[in-house]
């Protein structure tokens, strides 16, 4: 029993951080889906009204920056888990 607890504690201390880093990288899924939807809608809007391309591009860039932020947070967390712990 004590051996099991020691093993689990050892696992959490060393490999648990790496596992957490892997889980934190899953934020990329949401950001990818969101950015894909935003880009697709921007393409649709440009096809419908090609003269508004400048405004659409600015809005798309800002939206992509916001959507990208969550993915960057996940990346930062996983980098910190790998290298700092």
């Amino acid at each position, binding site marked *: 029993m004590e051996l099991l607890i020691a093993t689990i504690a050892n696992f959490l201390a060393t490999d648990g951080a790496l596992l957490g880093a892997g889980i934190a990288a899953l934020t990329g899924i949401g950001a990818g889906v969101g950015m894909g939807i935003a880009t697709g809608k921007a393409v649709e809007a440009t096809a419908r009204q090609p003269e508004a391309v400048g405004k659409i591009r*600015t809005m798309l*860039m*800002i939206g992509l*920056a916001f959507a*990208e*932020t969550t993915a*960057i*947070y996940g*990346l*930062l967390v996983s*980098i910190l888990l790998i*290298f*700092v712990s």
Partner: protein
Amino acid sequence: MANLSAQLLAIDFSGLRDEIFPDTENHVIEAGWFVVNGSVFSGFVVVVLLLLAALILRLTVIRRWKTTPSPMQMFVEWLVSFFDKSADEMCDRYGTIMGPYTLGAAAYICFGVLIELFGLRPAIADLGACLALALCTFLFIHTIGFASNRARRFKHYLNPINIVSDLAVPVSMTFRLFGSILSGMVIMDMVYILVEGIWYVGLPLVLPAILTPLFTLFHAFIQSYVFASLTLTFVQEAAEKVPRKMRKPKPKRAREARAL
């Protein structure tokens, strides 16, 4: 092929940690009280380079300003009017302040990342540099908000969620910038370590040359553009006039009834 896989297995990435989070005791310059780490040193280099470039442009291009422009004059005009025009569009009355600020911040971010190409640590891959830039933006947002709305701006703070979202702006700008620049740097450092381990037919020459534009050049321009446009968006939001409370017109029927 067995040779290549043996080489790949022999690479050790243990040096990566010191590259990403360098030792706090390890300083580039150390002269008495003047202690500077790698990022701040490359920040100084970037500032000196930008000032020199501005001086050279002032002495050569702007002195010989012509109606039929030279290519360099075209470039300077395009650069300045790009930022000035977007600042004027977004926050019309304060465009004269925001244009130069966004151009300066974007130039610092762009060159602070591009200095990685010379082997120095990028100036922006440091939490302090990102926080300083984000706090500048924070200061601009609130100064312009108060200048535009005076005391009516306080009505904005009656809702406690607005206070939280205002405080979240510098934090999110800091981590966005820091995270994206740091991730580019980590990937490039991994590639450099990989390339040191492999001495296979021309791969050390080709691989960094393909990957550097993706992870350094692309990031530099995109992040500086995003920082400038986010600053303008937040300032526009803060500079919007709060609608005055309309005085209720007296009900017409009552007045008519009194006249009768």
